[in-house]
């Protein structure tokens, strides 16, 4: 297990806008090693944008991000990946043309040393490395209980399984920080239960720090150690599930959620 408290990632005064539309303004919070941190908020509150900023997909217009003690102005996504940040996406971003196994293997690419010449010969080192990483991928497949669909092109899998495979791909990179963007969106009760179990196991087995966005309050309250609440791109609350549950601002924001959907169009 990792030591409880050290701060892994710190976001300070981050602001972001598309054209004229403000997605994030002056958001600050931190994520501690080994915790499960939830980011919640009504539609269009800027949750996904926050993740996109963290893993370098969007460049914030102001503010700084401190990761593993080093302040990084802005990382390119592949640099973030190298630094140990992996993520899943709100609407699944798997490589449709490939099988479950290959998708998870792509998660290992960062760890693979070989080059195309060795691949072309496919002897000695290349083959050995391939096998070694396959073994890791297989462990993840077993962990997520998707052995039955190992060789199935992900395009053919049901939604719930695709979400699982995507989680697997992220895990394959053995990340220090795992960003999950609505891992349970559109799942039924059983699927949600499974996914929650996997998330907890990941956190416990590998000590992976997790930041997740989720709409299902029940799930969030059960899983997360601390919660950040965003609304209209600014932070309105931050604390343990208990604190957040009784926070007036949060309650208001969520009562307003009904007529929020048009606003949700952008964000």
């Amino acid at each position, binding site marked *: 297990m990792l030591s409880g408290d050290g701060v892994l990632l710190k976001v300070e005064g981050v602001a972001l806008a598309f054209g004229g539309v403000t997605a994030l303004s002056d958001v600050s919070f931190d994520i501690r090693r080994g915790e499960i941190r939830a980011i919640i908020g009504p539609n269009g509150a800027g949750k996904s944008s926050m993740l996109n900023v963290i893993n370098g997909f969007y460049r914030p217009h102001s503010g700084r991000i401190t990761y593993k003690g080093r302040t990084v102005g802005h990382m*390119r996504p592949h640099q973030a990946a190298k630094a140990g940040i992996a*993520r899943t996406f709100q609407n699944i971003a798997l*490589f449709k043309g490939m099988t479950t196994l*290959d998708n998870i293997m792509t998660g290992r*690419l960062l760890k693979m040393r070989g080059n195309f010449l060795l691949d072309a010969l*496919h002897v000695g080192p*290349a083959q050995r*490395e391939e*096998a070694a990483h396959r073994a890791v991928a297989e462990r993840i497949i077993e962990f997520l209980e998707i052995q039955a669909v190992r060789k199935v092109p992900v395009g053919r899998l049901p939604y719930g399984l695709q979400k699982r495979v995507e989680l697997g791909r*992220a895990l394959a990179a053995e990340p220090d920080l795992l960003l999950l963007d609505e891992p349970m969106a559109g799942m039924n009760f059983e699927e949600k239960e499974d996914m929650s179990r996997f998330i907890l196991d990941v956190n416990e087995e590998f000590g992976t720090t997790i930041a997740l966005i989720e709409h299902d309050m029940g799930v969030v309250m059960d899983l997360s150690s601390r919660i950040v609440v965003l609304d209209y791109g600014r932070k309105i609350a931050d604390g343990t599930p208990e604190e957040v549950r009784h926070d007036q601002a949060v309650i208001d924001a969520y009562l307003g959620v009904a007529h929020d959907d048009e606003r949700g169009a952008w964000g």
Partner: protein
Amino acid sequence: MLYREVGQFATSYAADQAIFPIRQDRFGMLVLVLVAYLAVPLVANEYWLSTIFVPFFVFSLAALGLNILTGYAGLLSLGTGGFMAVGAFTAYKLATAFPGINIVLVFVAAGIVTALVGLLFGIPSLRIKGFYLAVATLAAQFFLIWLFVRIAWFQNYSPSGVITAPPRAVFGHFFVTGPEARAAYKYWFTLTFAAVLALAAKNMVRGATGRKWMAIRDMDIAAEIIGIRPLSTKLLAFAVSSFYIGIAGALWAFIYTASVEASAFDIDRSFQILFMIIIGGLGSILGSFLGAAFIVLLPIFLNNLPNQLGLHVGVALVTNLQDMIYGALIVFFLIAEPNGLAALWRAGKEKLRLWPFPH
């Protein structure tokens, strides 16, 4: 129906990820190789060897190269002809400048030079995508051809602009180019190139390299977010693809048509290769071969059709009719099987495996 897979199980990852995990397939492949190397040269006559099989292999290589770029890495290129020309002329310059070096090395070197050129023209692919990139590759096409036409140095200042392959032999006295080259030698020579490079390509695309390419192809954003560097991956695709195409060009100039001029590699050639991989199947090694076979055989078939039917028609008429039929067939194929012959093959195989169950 033919398949009996029960009792075939893998005890190692190597076995599980073999190119042909099913025993029956391995056997089939073995037979195919034996036939290609032994039976064909025995039964086929000069005409078949040198005007059907040799170009088939050459085209297969070119298609293979383009398929790596377009089918696996998802980068559309219309510059294939130009890169073939680079291979051809590099090989020519090398062969004439250093008569000493082995012809095989010459071809490989030609491939490497083409790879470098491909690398250069691949740089825009970082910024631009889709048809913008396709059109950009046309720049390579036109520029390169222009280069080889205009700069006499490339043709050793031959007045006609035609380059002729000097006689070269492998293993001492088996001439594959020049006057005393034998069709069978040419056949074996090109076949070997095609076979070895196809195997290499298969290994690349089923390994880490291939996964990088396909990741970029399927969803470049996600690919970058899991740590794949877009530029290097795309450039690698350009380089490897150009290497294959370059060698194909060299083979074309030296083995297939002993003498050639730059215009043989014009934009129509590029489209021809593109047709091969579309009809054969994007993202499929097998498809490259099937497509090549189709495009090689179709014109021959169309040529002989009138005589077969005993019609005697003007040449112009025939060529025009051919163009029309060719175009119509292309469209027909795209409608009938957008995923190419390889997909048909795969479906057929699945049917056999599931027989008598429906697919």
